[in-house]
């Protein structure tokens, strides 16, 4: 059985709580903290003068060599936990330090615009 596709979402869309629990998401952010004992990492990104944080559960991708302050891309399911609230249970966590975030954002937007123009808005898109 194949998992659901990890659709790109911006970290600020996830932290705002606009996306349903159980959705498979793909997002990015700078690694701020890593607590190996709890298998818990925090990615953060800066957008519209605010820091947005996404908590990542790293149980599935360990052992994993954290590089603090490096950019990461995470793919996994969105869960709501008691302690942390929203959390991404990572299936893939890749270090992509050096990525051009501006171009990445424009590529994500371009893909969304294409699906929106095509009409059949069946691929899950966050509200604009």
């Amino acid at each position, binding site marked *: 059985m*194949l998992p659901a*596709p*990890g659709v790109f979402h911006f970290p600020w869309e996830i932290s705002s709580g606009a996306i349903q629990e159980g959705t498979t998401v793909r997002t990015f952010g700078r690694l701020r903290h890593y607590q190996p004992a709890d298998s818990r990492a925090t990615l953060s990104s800066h957008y519209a003068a605010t820091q947005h944080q996404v908590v990542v559960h790293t149980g599935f991708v360990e052992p994993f060599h954290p590089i603090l302050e490096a950019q990461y*891309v995470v*793919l996994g399911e969105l869960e709501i936990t008691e302690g942390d609230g929203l959390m991404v249970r990572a299936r*893939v966590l890749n270090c992509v330090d050096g990525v051009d975030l501006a171009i*990445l954002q424009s590529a994500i937007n371009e*893909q969304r615009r*294409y699906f929106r123009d095509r009409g059949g808005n069946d691929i899950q898109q966050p509200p604009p």
Partner: protein
Amino acid sequence: MHAEERYSDEEPPSMLWGLDPIYSAFARLYIKDILEMKESCQVPGIFFYKLHPIFKVDVLGTVVCKREREDFFCYGVDDGTGVINCLCWKDEQWKDHSAPVDGSKSQVPSRGGFNPAEQLKKLLHSQRCSSHLDIGDLLRVRGPVKMSRGQREIMASTYYKVSDPVLAVQISWMLEVPQLYRKFYDKPFQFPSSVQGSNAADADGDSASSSLLGRATRLLKDFLQDGDSRRWKGLQEKAPTTSWSCWTPWSPGPLPKPRHRRSGLIITSCFITENQDPAATPSATPSAAKRLHALSREALQLLQDEGRVFRRVISPDQVTENDRELHRATRDVIREDCKRAKYSEKGCHVLHILSGVRLRYSRNVSKAVIELVLRRLECNSEIISTSDNHYAVL
């Protein structure tokens, strides 16, 4: 509108699939579209994305699951729109070298010399690395779409691991694919109107008329070739001037030059007799007759430009380059002039032959005609070309 609706739920006939360039290309579709596109009811294994026949696809995505079997890997690939299984066969050559080839454990380099054995080992190692993926790696895979246990999968004909440390490859892919969709995949492919049979006759517009002209020219050429120009002349002789109408069941409108009219009518009658299609005969409508006449004139003009047909002054008929008299005149010109000392060694130049033929036979022979005639005579071994543009009689 009606025709469009009819086409939107009908796939094109399989005969025409090859005309669509997307059919023979690896289509860079989103996995979501690969999973959802409709399978052909004519040929299983061919799919349709917006009436484009799709056979092979090209996909880039993250490996999200992996199964290993004795001779293949099955990777689940996720491109952000869907997940599909990719069946990747293991390479025979590294199945034999089952001992792990470790690049770092190389022997002492032989003093900077080139060591083929070591290089081969390195090559094998890198090959093996690029064909062995883990979850989270980026995979590029190309191959036909197959059904396996009720699910679609890609049978990889080529696959490799993509090194993409800063997401540059993925970003350029994400920017490129929507463009491909907008420019090619989402646009319906227009099959050339000439292959759509009866549709061509109905359709107006430039493409339809040009294809009609092409067909007319071809028809005329065939007619001239298989029947010889004799048949053409025979046709004219058989049909006396007073009974043109016996070839043409309609009355043509007043035409400027009677001699155009004669040759034109023979050709139009040839179209009709060759077509054998009573429905195509524009009975009793002068405008249709005019159109047919114009078409035949245009077709003749094309043939004239090509050099296949020319107009003699002495008789008003169109004569083909098959004409025996022309052949004889050309041969005679070359034979006589080759006797002269000036041409005996090198042969006569094309332009010299042309002026000779013009003097002797008809002023209207063009260079294109004479070139065709010379080529034909040469094929029949009646003359030989001595050098570029020079000919002599054997």
